[in-house]
C-alpha cells in the first residue's frame, strides 16, 4: 500500500515540520488578513481623525445611489439565504435490541448446521472456518424462525420478524424524541431482501395510524448501504418541504433469506448476517435545532455498477438445486477498495483541510508531470473527522478499510465491537456504531463523524455528520447492559 510522502516521517523533527505546515496552510486566510488589518489600523492612526473626516466628506453620496446600493445588498443577501440549503438535523435515533432468548452461540449455530447439512460435511467445515474468523461474538441474535430444526422461513415468520424489529425501534424512537405519530411528514423504510405487498412502510403507517398525506417510500434491493441512501433521500425531500419531520427506518429481515443449500459462496451470509434495525428522526424545523444530536453535512454516493465485475460481485441467484442464495464473489475486497477510492476522491475536497488538499494536489501534479513512480499521497482523514463508523460488513471489510485509510485501532473500535456484539446487521449497523461511540462518552460538540457503507451493486456511500451538542450516556440503548465489557480483544481465530 502507498505510504505517506517521505519514509522517515516517524522522525520527531519532521512531525513538528508537518504540524507547522498544516497550521500555516489551514489558517492562511487569518495569517494573511491579520497583517493587512494591522497595516490599515496603523495607517488610520497615522492619518489622524481630522484627515479621516475630510476623506469622508469628499465622497459624494446621491440618494439614488444609496438606495440602489442598499437594495442590491438586500437583494444579494436574500438570494443567498434563500438558496442556502436547509439544514437537516438528526434529532435522535433508536436501535433495536434483540431479546436475549434469540441469542445464537457458536456451538448452537454449528450444531444446527450439522443437523441440517448432514450430507455435506465439507460445507459444515467451511461454515465453521468462516465463523471462527468472523469476528462475531456469542451474543448475536437470529430471528426465532431460524432457531428451528429445520428452519421455517415462511412469509408469516418474516412478517413477524419485521413487525418485531421495526415496531420496537419505532416505539423506542417515539419515546426518546417525544414525537407524535401525527407529526411524521415523511417516512422512508429500507429493507433489502424482504419486500412484501403491502410494503413495510405501509405496515408502519397502519400500525401507528400515520396521516393520510404522508410521503412514504419503501426502498428494497439496495443492499447494506441503503441506510445512507434513505438518509440522502430524506435530505432531498426536506429541502423541498419546509418545517417537516422525516422518519427513516433501516433494517434487514433475516428470516426469508436463510440459505438452505450447500454452495459455499452462498453460505457466507448465513454466518454473518444477524437481526437488527434502527429508526432515525430527521428534521428541518428550527425548533429542533437546539435539541438535535447531529447536523447532516454531506452525503456522497458512488456507484460502480457500470463495471460488470462490480455489478456481479454480490449476486442473488439460484444454486444448482434451485435454492436461492446470495453469492459473494472472490474479488469482493478488491472491488470494495476501488469503490472506496472513488468515494474518497469525491468526498476529499469537501471535508479535508486545505493543507491535506494541497499536499494531495502537489503529489498529483508531481506524478503526472515529473515522475509517475512517486507514491500517491493518501490524505490523512483523521484530520477531517474525529469518529469513523465503518459498516460492519465483516472482519475483512474493516481490516481493509483500516489499512487503506490508515486508521488506528481506536478509530475502528466502534465497527469491530458492533460486529462482535450484534453481527452484520446490514444497513442499521452504522447506527449501532454511532450508539457505541456515544455510550463510551466520546462524542463531543463539534465532532465530525464519517459513516461509510458498502452495498451490492456495487455502491459505496458515505455521510458526514457534525455533532450538535455533547451527548451524555443513557440507559435506553442497545449497549446499556454490556458497554462496560467493551472493548474486548477479538482473537484472530476462535477455537470452536
Amino acid at each position, binding site marked *: 500500500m502507498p505510504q505517506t510522502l517521505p519514509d522517515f516521517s516517524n522522525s520527531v523533527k519532521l512531525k513538528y515540520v508537518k504540524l507547522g505546515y498544516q497550521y500555516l496552510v489551514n489558517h492562511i486566510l487569518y495569517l494573511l488578513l491579520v497583517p493587512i488589518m494591522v497595516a490599515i489600523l496603523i495607517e488610520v492612526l497615522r492619518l489622524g481623525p481630522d484627515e479621516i473626516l475630510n476623506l469622508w466628506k469628499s465622497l459624494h453620496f446621491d440618494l439614488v445611489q444609496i438606495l440602489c446600493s442598499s437594495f442590491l445588498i438586500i437583494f444579494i443577501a436574500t438570494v443567498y439565504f434563500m438558496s442556502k440549503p436547509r439544514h437537516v438535523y438528526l434529532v435522535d435515533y433508536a436501535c433495536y435490541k434483540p431479546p436475549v432468548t434469540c441469542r445464537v*452461540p457458536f456451538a*448452537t449455530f454449528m*450444531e*444446527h448446521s*450439522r443437523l441440517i447439512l448432514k450430507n455435506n460435511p465439507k460445507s459444515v467445515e467451511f461454515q465453521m472456518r468462516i465463523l471462527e474468523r468472523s469476528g462475531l461474538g*456469542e*451474543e448475536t441474535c437470529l430471528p426465532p424462525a431460524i432457531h*428451528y430444526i429445520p428452519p421455517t422461513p415462511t412469509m408469516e415468520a418474516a412478517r413477524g420478524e419485521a413487525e418485531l424489529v421495526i415496531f420496537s425501534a419505532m416505539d423506542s424512537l417515539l419515546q426518546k424524541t417525544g414525537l407524535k405519530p401525527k407529526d411524521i411528514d415523511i417516512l422512508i423504510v429500507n429493507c433489502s431482501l424482504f419486500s412484501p405487498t403491502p410494503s413495510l412502510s405501509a405496515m408502519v403507517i397502519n400500525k401507528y395510524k400515520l396521516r393520510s398525506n404522508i410521503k412514504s417510500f419503501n426502498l428494497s434491493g439496495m443492499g447494506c448501504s441503503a441506510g445512507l441512501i434513505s438518509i440522502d433521500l430524506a435530505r432531498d425531500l426536506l429541502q423541498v418541504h419546509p418545517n417537516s419531520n422525516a422518519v427513516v427506518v433501516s433494517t434487514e429481515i433475516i428470516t426469508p433469506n436463510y440459505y438452505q443449500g450447500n454452495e459455499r459462496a452462498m453460505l457466507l451470509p448465513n454466518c454473518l448476517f444477524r437481526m437488527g434495525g434502527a429508526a432515525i428522526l430527521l428534521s428541518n424545523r428550527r425548533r429542533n435545532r437546539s435539541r438535535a444530536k447531529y447536523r447532516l453535512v454531506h452525503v456522497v454516493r458512488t456507484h460502480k455498477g457500470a463495471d460488470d465485475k462490480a455489478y456481479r460481485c454480490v449476486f442473488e441467484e439460484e444454486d444448482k438445486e434451485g435454492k436461492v442464495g446470495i453469492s459473494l464473489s472472490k474479488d469482493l475486497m478488491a472491488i470494495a477498495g476501488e469503490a472506496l477510492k472513488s468515494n474518497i476522491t469525491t468526498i476529499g475536497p469537501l471535508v479535508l483541510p486545505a493543507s491535506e488538499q494541497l499536499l494531495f494536489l502537489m503529489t498529483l501534479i508531481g506524478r503526472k508531470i515529473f515522475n509517475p513512480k512517486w507514491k500517491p499521497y493518501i490524505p490523512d482523514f483523521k484530520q477531517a473527522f474525529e469518529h469513523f463508523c465503518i459498516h460492519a460488513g465483516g472482519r475483512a471489510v474493516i481490516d481493509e478499510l483500516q489499512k487503506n485509510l490508515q486508521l488506528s485501532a481506536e478509530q475502528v473500535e466502534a465497527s469491530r465491537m458492533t460486529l462482535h456484539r450484534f453481527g452484520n446487521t446490514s444497513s442499521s449497523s452504522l447506527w449501532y456504531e454511532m450508539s457505541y461511540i456515544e455510550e463510551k462518552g466520546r462524542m463531543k460538540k463539534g465532532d465530525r463523524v464519517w459513516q461509510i457503507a458498502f452495498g451490492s451493486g456495487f455502491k459505496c456511500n458515505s455521510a458526514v455528520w457534525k455533532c450538535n451538542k455533547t451527548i451524555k450516556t443513557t440507559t435506553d440503548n442497545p449497549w446499556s447492559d454490556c458497554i462496560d465489557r467493551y472493548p474486548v480483544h477479538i482473537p484472530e481465530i476462535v477455537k470452536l
Partner: protein
Amino acid sequence: MTSEMITYICKRTVVSTKPAQAGKCNPLSVFDRLMEKNHIRIVYYFPSTRNGEPGVVTKKLRESLSHVLTCFPIVTGRLQKKDDGHWMIKCNDAGVRMVEARTQGSVEEWLKNVNRDKELMLVTWEDMFHKPYFWATFYVQLTEFEEGGLAIGFSCSHLLADPTSATMFVKAWADTTLAGTMLAPPFFHPLPPPRLGNKNPNHNPYTDLINHYKSTIDDRSPAFTNNITNYVTATLAFSGPMVQACMLDTSRPSPFEAMAGLLWVCVSKVKGMKQGLISMSICLDMRKQLGLDKGFFGNCLVYNKVHHAESLLDKSELSEAARAVGESVTKMNNERIMDLIEWLEHHDYEFPPLMNGHDLICANLEDLDPYATLFEEGFVPIRVSYYVEPVFGIGQILVLQSPPSEGPLSRMVMVTLPADELSKLCDDDLILRFNPTILMG
C-alpha cells in the same frame, strides 16, 4: 381416545441468556461415568392454567428456561473425551433441545387412559450420536393439551444427572418462572476426595459393595445386549394408612424398606420362585451420607445387592425381605461409599456397564419432592412419573412420593416388568391386601 395423536409443532434449541465462560470444562465423577448406558425421563402433568391461549404458556416457559440455563453451564455443554479417555463436559453453551407439541383432550382425560408407551411419547429423547460433541444431553418437551393442562417431559443422559439432580433442575426452572430467582442454587463440584493418610492399617474395605460393582462391570453377558422383551410399566398408589399397615407388618421404621420388601416378595412370586427371593439390588441417594448438599448436581446413586437369609421357617417372608432391605440400607454408610469411590478411581474398565442390567432394581426416590415444582402460583403437578431407561434384566421398581394431597406416608410405586408378569402382579393377593390404586397399567 384411542386415536390420540400428538402433533409436533417444532423442535429447536434453547440457550442460556448470558454466554458461558469460554473454555470451561467439567470432568465427570466415577459415579457419573458408570451410568453411560442409561438415561432418565420424567413427566410432569400440570392442570389447566388461567392463560387459555395456546402457545402463551410455552413461550413463557421457554424464556424462563433460557434464564435458568445461565446457572447450569453443564446442562448446555457437550460431552468430550479427555486425554485419559474419560468423559468430561465442555461448557460450550450449545443449549438444550426443546420440542413443542400439542394434543387433543384435557390432561385429566389423558391420565385416565395413559400407559407406558403413551407416556413416553410425551418425552423426547435421542440416543448418543456417533460424534457425541454435537449431541444434546438434555431434552425438554412441552405438550399443551387443547382442552386444558400441560405436560412437561424432561429427559437427560444419566451421565450428567441422577433423578435427584434432574428434579432439582426442573424445580429451579419452576422457581425462575414463578419468582424470577432460584430458591436452591446448584453446586457443581467433584465428589469428596479420598481420605489421605490416617488410614487404619487394619481397615478392611467393605468388599460386598465393591464386589457388586465389580461383577456388574465385568458382566458382559450378551443376553442383555439385544433385549426384545416387551416391558410394561404400572403405577400403583398406596395410601398413607396402607403404607403404615405394611410398615407395622414388617416392623420396619421406613416406608421404603416396607414397600421394597413387599414388592420383592410379590415380584418373586410372579417370576415363578416357589422358594426364596429373586436377585435384587437397591439404589439409594448417598448425598447425605457423603455430606453433600442437596443441590449437588451429578450422580450420587449407589447400587447395592440385597442379601437375605435362605431359611424363612419361623418368620414371614415379607418381614424377612424388608429386614434384608433394611440391613442393606444401613450397610451403605460414608466409610463404605468412600471405599467404593476409591476403588472405582483406581479401576478402569473398557466398556461402561449397565447398572440395571441384571437384578431387579429397587430405587428409593422418595425424597425428590417433585410436587414442590410450581410454575404458576397454586398449580401443583397432578402427577409426576419417573423412568430410568433402558430397562433390562428382571425389571425395575421406583418408589416415589405421592401428591401432597394423599398425605406424607403415601407412596407411588412404578413397576416395570414384562407384560405378562405385570398383570399377574396386579392380581397378586399380597399386593391387593394393601389396596393399591392402579393409576396406570
